[in-house]
């Protein structure tokens, strides 16, 4: 369970203006179900995920979390570019108190980076980084996984492998996923939410969320 209590978040733009992403948003992501959050580009989907994770703090308001919540799994890396994949994984394992050997081996198996596992992350392609991030996230037991629109990575085979791994994990963990892809949300989630104009509305099922998203003028993919 993750609950937002009157959360506000504003960014200062480079031009000196202010951009209000959230204005006193209260919402509760209940445990025990997978939730997909729909939102157009720039609606604040990535900000939401970072706030839920705690990678970022709201300007005002509180966020409460029950259980272990993952780091945001997305395009923005949590990796240090000068360190190798293995070293980065070792660091993450230590931060979360996971078994070092086991985690390093699990990620090596899952990410299939071969000899690149020993190379600096700077030398990786975007797809390789994403594979490493997925591996890291899955190797550590989180109660809630936060995913930022990256289910469309890699080739078909790797996508299937990810989907399978997440399905397996979803038996005991929940995922919160932000996306603007309706196929992804149908595939993974039982409940939906719509993020638009600084407001977050939760729905009991995906269909009504898609409906509301469509009525808000969004072009569905």
């Amino acid at each position, binding site marked *: 369970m993750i609950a937002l209590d009157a959360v506000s978040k504003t*960014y*200062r*733009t480079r031009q000196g203006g202010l951009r209000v992403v959230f204005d006193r948003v209260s919402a509760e992501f209940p445990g025990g179900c997978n939730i997909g959050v729909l939102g157009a580009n720039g609606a604040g989907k990535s900000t939401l995920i970072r706030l839920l994770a705690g990678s*970022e*703090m709201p300007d005002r308001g509180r966020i409460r979390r029950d259980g272990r919540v993952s780091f*945001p799994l997305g395009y923005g890396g949590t*990796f240090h570019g000068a360190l190798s994949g293995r070293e980065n994984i070792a660091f*993450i394992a230590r*931060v979360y108190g996971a078994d070092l050997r086991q985690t390093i081996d699990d990620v090596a198996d899952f990410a299939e980076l071969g000899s690149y596992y020993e190379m600096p992350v700077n030398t990786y392609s975007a797809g390789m980084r994403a594979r490493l991030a997925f591996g890291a996230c899955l190797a550590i037991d989180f109660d809630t996984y936060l995913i930022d629109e990256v289910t469309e990575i890699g080739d078909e085979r790797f996508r299937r492998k990810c989907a399978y791994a997440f399905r397996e994990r979803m038996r005991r963990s929940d995922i919160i996923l932000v996306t603007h892809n309706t196929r992804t949300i149908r595939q993974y989630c039982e409940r939906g939410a719509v993020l638009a104009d600084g407001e977050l509305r939760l729905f009991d099922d995906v269909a009504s969320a898609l409906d509301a998203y469509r009525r808000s003028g969004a072009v569905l993919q």
Partner: protein
Amino acid sequence: MMHAVTSNGALLQLPPVKPFDAILARGILEFATDVVVAVLILAGFATIGISAMPDDLGGAATALVVTAGLGCGVGFVNAVLQTTLRSWDRVWNNVTRLLYFFSGIFYVPGMMPDWARDILAWNPLLHAIDWFRIAFFASYEPHWLDRRYLVVCAVLAVLAGLALERGLRRRLLSEPA
């Protein structure tokens, strides 16, 4: 320490890692580096037969630790300020360059006119350096040395740094737009 937060964006994406951790880790790293360098220099002198060990090893070590405390406090302040004022590093580096002349490194305070020393004694680093210096030269007697002043400055700097981190914590964990 100044860039501990601004240059560690990826690290801080891991929610368990807080800006406080990144700043403190950088402080410890700086201190450890300086200690290793000092040991290497002393060992180097010892192998070529020059006696460079301080007479009062404990005094030198205490001076170093207190000075590191001052540095750590100022480092915290700077790391936090750097996140809000993007040019702060340039300002700070240029202003503190003057401290090379005002801290009694090249111009020993004992050789200064009294009026100049009375003014420069407000600079805590002057006390830090003379505290360290007397551990090497027993005959050097700086009557102006006020150890308590340096300790108070170090404690205040640490408190200011921690207070600033606490006060601006929400801003520290925020991606610039």
